[in-house]
């Protein structure tokens, strides 16, 4: 047997993983994905295109009119992941840990951090919004693309107990028990997007038996992807309390009517809404400003003067959030996003991204690496010139 055949399996794995060929293939795939993602934004919008090409394991293709689809490309997730491994392991194996190579070390670490940062954002970033009027406080944010089934116990005069069933559990179907309550929810159907209309005699009998559902016909639609469009999810939920059926409710983001039921002296409201996250602090909108250039209607600046109160840390301060000056607090960043109601209502976009610093660190490292690397190269070039000049003087 030759040496290649006897090669250690771990070494063979590392060789394949750190090969330059793999790096080139991955970079080529990345370019193809970026190009395809850019073109797809025309039809899918930014969010839809990024989800399909960059934040996926496989890119699927479905012929027009077909009910099946096939994978045509690896998605951004495996390509990016392998690229991180390729760059990092090749760096450790091949590059010497010397001062002369320190620039290249910084450069490669910066690039790996850049790709890793996108992974962290894809997995952990949460986009939400916070809406409040002047003089009002808000202590929760709503996710912009995720929904939840809210079951609210409104019995107590002083407070509501809100239970939120995330969309992912509704999509999975089956029965969902609400802890510390006698409630058991059975998901009869869940539609990511739907259209509602008043039911007519020609429509089939509604599956809903309680609330406003029997009056409404619901039709499933494919989810929307455009940036300026939003799904109208609907669900049919069979509610049981202590084993007793309370009926099948049609809940939908398109239904504004309140629906509910009572059991054992307690009153519950049921609703499908944007997913909420309650904050341990509150923000009060003291004033919203919409400045325009003098003599015109051209917007110059939008800002929200906000009072931030955190009972847990006794923090109580006033903050000005404007277009380019977001508030960063406890891992969330609050950007001025929109406004309304004759400039008395403000909408803040709230982004929670544990990896938000990674692109900054990455760019800094890449810049430093380039400076260090070219400084060494410049030094070498300078010394070579001096030696060449000295040799020339000696020769004459």
């Amino acid at each position, binding site marked *: 047997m030759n040496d290649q055949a006897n090669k250690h399996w771990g070494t063979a794995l590392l060789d394949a993983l750190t090969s330059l060929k793999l790096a080139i293939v991955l970079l080529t795939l990345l370019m193809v994905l970026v190009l395809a993602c850019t073109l797809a934004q025309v039809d899918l919008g930014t*969010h839809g295109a990024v989800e399909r090409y960059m934040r996926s394991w496989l890119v699927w293709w479905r012929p027009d009119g077909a009910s099946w689809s096939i994978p045509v490309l690896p998605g951004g997730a495996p390509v990016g992941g392998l690229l991180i*491994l390729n760059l990092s392991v090749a760096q450790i194996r091949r590059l010497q840990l010397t001062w002369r190579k320190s620039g290249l070390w910084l450069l490669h670490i910066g690039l790996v951090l850049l790709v890793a940062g996108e992974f962290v954002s894809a997995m952990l970033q949460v986009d939400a919004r916070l809406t409040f009027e002047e003089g009002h406080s808000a202590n929760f944010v709503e996710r*912009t693309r995720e929904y939840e089934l809210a079951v609210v116990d409104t019995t107590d005069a002083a407070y509501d107990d809100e*239970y939120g069933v*995330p969309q992912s559990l509704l999509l999975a179907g089956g029965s969902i028990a609400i802890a510390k309550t006698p409630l058991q929810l059975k998901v009869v159907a869940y539609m990511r997007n739907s259209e*509602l209309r008043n039911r007519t005699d020609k429509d089939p009998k509604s599956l809903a038996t309680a609330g406003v559902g029997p009056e409404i016909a619901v039709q499933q639609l494919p989810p929307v992807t455009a940036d300026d469009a939003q799904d109208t999810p609907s669900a049919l939920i069979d509610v049981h309390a202590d084993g007793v059926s309370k009926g099948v409710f049609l809940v939908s983001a*398109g*239904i504004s*009517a309140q629906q509910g039921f009572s059991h054992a002296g307690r009153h519950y409201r049921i609703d499908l809404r944007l997913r909420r996250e309650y904050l341990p602090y509150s923000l009060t909108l003291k004033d919203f400003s919409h400045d325009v250039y003098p003599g015109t209607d051209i917007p110059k600046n939008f800002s929200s003067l906000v009072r931030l109160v955190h009972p847990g840390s006794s923090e109580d301060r006033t903050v000005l959030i404007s277009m380019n000056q977001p508030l960063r607090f406890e891992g969330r*960043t609050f950007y001025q996003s929109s406004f309304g109601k004759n400039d008395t209502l403000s909408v803040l976009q709230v982004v929670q991204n544990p990896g938000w610093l990674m692109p900054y660190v990455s760019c800094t490292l890449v810049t430093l690496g380039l400076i260090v690397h070219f400084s060494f190269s410049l030094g070498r070039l300078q010394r070579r010139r001096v030696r060449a000049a000295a040799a020339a003087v000696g020769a004459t």
Partner: protein
Amino acid sequence: MPTVPCPTRNDRPARPACATCARVAARPATPQARALLATLAWAWMALSACGNDHVTHARVPKAAAPAHAHDVDPGGATVEPPPTAAAPVQAEVRPTWTLPQHWKQTAGNGMRFATVQPDGPGAPDITVVMLGGAAGGELANVNRWRGQVGLGPVDDAALPGLRTTVTSKAGPVQVYDFSGTGTDAVRMLAAIWIDANGNSWFFKTNAGPAAVQAVRPGLLTLLETLRLE
């Protein structure tokens, strides 16, 4: 040498029985490979642990019930999105209107947004209903209303000739007025308005022809005052 099929995980012996498995197992992994696998395993576990697919609970004081995302001016400018911009705001729209003199209004329940009660004896109520999205579209609703008064369906081309458009600050409102035939004919006066988010708002009343005729001028006046809060 014959190869032995590798046993399943459940009855696997302490040492692999098949020749291929035995050869691989005999080669110890290098420290680099171990470190690599450990890193992969750690990253997988760390990312898997980030899942939040569970039922949440929050106790919210009733008095401190915060504002909802509605009433954003759909005609107003939108601030430049931040660098990590997500979807644009789809704010809920709530219309308002001015009631004709002596008319009354009550907040809706169930599907209804509101119920308008015109003045006068025997005047039929006007219901205001909002449904998300196109709610079947204008044609489907028109045919539904026609069906309710005993008229046959029409197609898209016929709609412009059947409707009256009322211009309001909130946008155009399409009004349809259908009368059934026969001695106990029912008349249907219905209007449809699409808000900035594409949701459908219906203003509808149906009763005897004379009763509907009595409330028609007031309803058209109400629709002309339709605006956003």
